[in-house]
């Protein structure tokens, strides 16, 4: 054939394109960069500024007040937090919150895991179940809390942090957990389960040896959600926790009657604990991923 081979023509086109780049570079950055960078900086300041102020002010000494300037530096208000009775039952509230969060986490992980497995297939009423779940996610927390409180009142059930508050918090953490699980399950290959069965594994062996280990990073993520959502849950817990406060409720009541930097100290302590939990969870996920895919072919 005498016609020019198509590859040559294609190369020609590429060369022309290279000669005329779409966005000519003039050396500096475009003005939009500076506008967006300023916007982002303001955003970060607005996001973290107030928190950072509280952390700083919590390290004042005994003369400290609720506003700047700083009066000395010490850990006085942290000690005060755990020793003074007038600041409230911080220690008790803290331990209740942790125990409640652990219980919520366990229930959330187990139920989310099971619904993740169940929702792989269509079943009668599956969309009803799904939208009911989403419904409890979008319902205003305070209204939901009031509702639970009212029902308990009508039925004569005594509200307490480990029964009614647990239920109210689950209405918030479960939809989150299940949604995270859906995302995790979208990467689960059902053939793994079938392969296990084909190789002679019982349903229990398949769950323990294949499904749970494969989904482990996702389950840790669900646990993280469950724990952090429960640990600082306020609106749903307010009217369902009964006579003993969880930590967020305790902090709220402190803002009404405590006028010392120990309030700030409490903020610093709870933030540290939250970060610790998040760090542990992310570290666990990272370790699992790393162990699983330490190589060039990994993704």
């Amino acid at each position, binding site marked *: 054939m005498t016609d020019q081979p198509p590859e040559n023509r294609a190369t020609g086109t590429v060369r022309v394109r290279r000669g005329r780049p779409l966005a000519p570079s003039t050396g500096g950055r475009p003005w939009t960069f500076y506008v967006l960078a300023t916007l982002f900086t303001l955003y970060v300041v607005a996001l973290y500024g107030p928190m950072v102020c509280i952390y700083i002010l919590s390290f004042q000494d005994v003369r400290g007040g609720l506003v700047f300037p700083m009066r000395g530096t010490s850990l006085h208000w942290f000690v005060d937090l755990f020793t003074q009775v007038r600041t409230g039952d911080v220690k008790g509230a803290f331990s209740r919150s942790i125990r409640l969060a652990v219980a919520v986490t366990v229930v959330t992980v187990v139920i989310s895991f099971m619904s993740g497995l169940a929702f792989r297939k269509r079943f009668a009423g599956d969309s009803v179940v799904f939208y009911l779940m989403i419904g409890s996610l979008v319902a205003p927390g305070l209204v939901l809390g009031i509702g639970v409180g009212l029902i308990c009142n009508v039925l004569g059930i005594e509200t307490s942090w480990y029964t009614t508050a647990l239920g109210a918090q689950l209405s918030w953490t479960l939809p989150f957990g299940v949604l995270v699980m859906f995302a995790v399950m979208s990467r689960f*290959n059902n*053939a*793994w389960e*079938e*392969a*296990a*069965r*084909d*190789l*002679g*594994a*019982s349903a229990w*062996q398949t769950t323990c*040896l*294949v499904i749970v*280990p*494969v989904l*482990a990073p996702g389950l840790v993520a669900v646990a993280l959600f469950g724990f952090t959502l429960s640990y600082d849950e306020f609106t749903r817990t307010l009217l369902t926790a009964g006579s003993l406060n969880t930590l967020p409720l305790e902090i709220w009541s402190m803002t009404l009657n405590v006028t010392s930097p120990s309030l700030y100290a409490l903020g610093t302590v709870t933030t540290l604990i939250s970060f610790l939990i998040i760090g542990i969870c992310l570290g666990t996920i990272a370790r699992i991923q790393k162990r*699983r*895919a*330490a*190589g*060039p*072919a*990994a*993704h």
Partner: protein
Amino acid sequence: MPVEHGSIELAGIVKSYDGSSRVVDGVNLKIADGSYCCFLGPSGCGKTTILRMIAGHEDPTDGEILIGGEQVVGLAPVERRTAMMFQSYALFPHLNVRDNIAFALRVRGMSTPDRRKAADAMIEKVRLTELADRLPAQLSGGQQQRVALARAAITGPKVLLLDEPLSALDEQLRVQMRQELSRMQRDLGITFIHVTHTQLEAIAIADTVVVMEKGRIKQAGPARDVYDQPRDRYVAEFLGGQNVLSGRIVRIEGDSAMISAEEMRDVIVPLGSRRTVSAGDRVDFAVRRDDVDLTRPETGTGRQRAKVPSRVRAIEYQGNFVKVILDNIGRDELIAYVPDRIFYRDPFSIGDIVVAGWDKDKTRMLA
């Protein structure tokens, strides 16, 4: 007759998910022990469903499945002594090669040292010894396939079921792994049932090719029979390499029919087994593309040959042959595969008027 352990018999298999439409519609088939059988068909033809029913991952709505002469419907995969190699392999991502292969032994409660030993022996068989500690994500497609094969074979199954085993590989590797599958089948000496939609793969590897359409078997037999002597238009077109032409019988001459259409006149086709046709009937017949030769209009003619004047529409160089696409006959393509040495002695170009000719005995009447 002695009982053949890995022989399979499907008797009137029907599968329906919704009670009305049948995914598998009355399949009867015998597969000999130790043979390599390929189910071939487009997606949705029911071939994978048949495989899964043999494996025990689905139950037939009706019919019987016999493995080694025993009725197996309702039994678990392990009890059937079948093993399945899944599409894209389904290797457990959290277990290394050795633990993947040893999984079946682990769930049977074999002790760790014993199963490690058994797995290592198997790993050696599939030549993966250096990779035993790697995770599936760190293996190439071909290596993953070998792990999958070893994992399925470690329990000593009578039948190995392979669901599109080569579809996840690139072209070059596919040919290589095709040979490897064939070698493993001979080594293990067990029945392999392989599902694919690629006809080249099926005819290259299988002793028996089963062509399926819409839940039914269209033709089953040795690869060469199915390719060379397709029973009907569907099989001929699906396996490729054939010109399937359609025309009306003008007259019957002894054991041959003279067939005409608008673009071809008096093409002679042996009746074969289709004795009942008569003049005026519309029939399909096939002639292999490599049996069609092309000549210039003025050159000589022969007796007992079909001659169809046509025009070159396109030419594709394929390496060892040249694919010459001629004007359609009705709606049917007419294509000639001309060996490249012959083609370039006197090359045609697009638009040339040619005569496509073939011997009478190269054509075959289709059902």
